[in-house]
């Protein structure tokens, strides 16, 4: 398969995440403020105008998307600086994947930093409203995902993790690399479980108010389904550990498939938003879903990047895995913060 297919898939991701996401999320600024203190906007029309007119976030993301695309093309056309020639050690598709993942993670860090700055500004400038509202309906996972489906989903995850433990304890594969890979599977499953819990527990916010009651249902179901995403990769890694060979073409197809899934979901969300809400030019359907999708993309790419390393590097790379896991946690925390999981934030539903 030509590397141009990889480039096309990454280009679609870049357009979706760095082209479309910032436009969508920046429309969410005003509802977020209104959610915190509806009266503040009326008292500060100049600030509202300034926020609505602000374009620097969109432009910075667009610029990063352009840089990412140009870097991928430069690599493909072999117009690549000598100082970065170490990337060439891997096969072309793998080098493209690593390059794309690195650029993507850097972009996500930029988005996270912007989110932190925005929420700090919000905390400092927009006082919390004294009037607050909440539902008296209890929220639980059972309200959104049928129990049999929960049982099947979690059974599959437990069986997957148990397979790692059993193989590790009974087979002759208990190397440092094996235990590192197993720990990574546990951590990644934990992160996705945390995502589900957060989706259920998080305080209703601007998204729910703008989009309606169906928003959380979609969000929770998406988060629940996302828990199954690490499974194919985990099973492939387990096979790799047991068989002792690397299933690189499988990795490549799985990675590209996942990136396409993220792009398709992003497009579907945008289209459904436009279909349901003719006034959507100003109010976005969801920032959480995009945050969730971006996180999923980030986690999988990080995982993929870590595991696509040459075997000897991979075996010596447990420390790197740990640091990437920490990075996942950090970005997750930022996404959660962006979605209102902060005791200091406030909602007016």
């Amino acid at each position, binding site marked *: 398969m030509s590397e141009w297919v990889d480039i096309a898939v990454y280009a679609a991701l870049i357009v979706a995440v760095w082209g479309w996401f910032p436009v969508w999320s920046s429309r969410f600024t005003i509802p977020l403020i209104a959610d915190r203190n509806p009266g503040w906007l009326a008292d500060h029309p100049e600030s509202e105008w300034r926020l609505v007119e602000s374009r620097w976030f969109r432009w910075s993301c667009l610029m990063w998307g352009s840089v990412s695309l140009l870097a991928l093309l430069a690599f493909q056309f072999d117009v690549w600086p000598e100082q970065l020639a170490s990337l060439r050690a891997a096969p072309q598709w793998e080098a493209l994947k690593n390059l794309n993942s690195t650029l993507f993670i850097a972009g996500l860090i930029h988005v996270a930093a912007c989110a932190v700055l925005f929420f700090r500004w919000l905390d400092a400038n927009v006082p*919390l409203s004294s009037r607050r*509202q909440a539902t*008296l309906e209890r929220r639980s996972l059972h309200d959104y995902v049928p129990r049999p489906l929960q049982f099947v989903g979690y059974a599959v995850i437990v069986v997957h993790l148990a397979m790692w433990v059993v193989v590790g304890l009974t087979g002759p594969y208990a190397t440092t690399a094996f235990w590192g890979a197993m720990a990574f599977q546990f951590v990644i499953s934990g992160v996705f479980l945390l995502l589900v819990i957060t989706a259920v527990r998080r305080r209703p916010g601007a998204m729910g108010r703008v989009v309606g009651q169906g928003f959380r249902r979609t969000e929770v179901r998406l988060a629940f389904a996302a828990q199954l995403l690490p499974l194919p990769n985990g099973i492939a890694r387990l096979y790799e550990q047991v068989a002792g060979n690397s299933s690189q073409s499988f990795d490549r197809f799985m990675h590209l498939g996942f990136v396409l899934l993220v792009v398709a979901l992003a497009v579907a969300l945008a289209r459904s938003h436009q279909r349901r809400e003719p006034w959507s030019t100003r109010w976005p359907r969801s920032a959480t879903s995009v945050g969730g999708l971006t996180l999923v993309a980030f986690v999988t790419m990080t995982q993929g990047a870590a595991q696509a390393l040459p075997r000897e590097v991979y075996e010596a790379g447990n420390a790197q895995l740990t640091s990437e896991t920490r990075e996942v946690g950090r970005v997750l925390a930022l996404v959660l913060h962006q979605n209102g999981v902060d005791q200091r934030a406030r909602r007016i539903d």
Partner: protein
Amino acid sequence: MDIVIQTNAPEPVYEQIVRQIHDAVKSGRLKPDTPLPTVRQLAGDLVINRNTVARAYRILEEQGVILTAGRKGTFIRQGAVREVAKVRTSRAERVMRRVVRTLLGEGLNRKEIADIFSTALSVEMRKG
């Protein structure tokens, strides 16, 4: 069903929660066996201290309006409507006794107090 609180109101937040749950039970919006949100959920949604919600729930439980069933959560109790009515009656009685005590202290007699009460009731009822 939603609950609305005002943090700068003279009425303490926990009393606002108790009062609104009473209202919901009395009006039938919260029926017996309806699960209530957890303390963590309600406190998080209202961005208030968990102890405030816990205090409101404790009062409601003491009044026999809600029932906490361990890990299953908190529910509206069977007979909660009757308990709410009882609580309201006893609160009204307390207020009335305080007023009567004040009026007696002012030197008014039984008939005068009854007339005042009757007039005040007519006026307020007319206001609707």
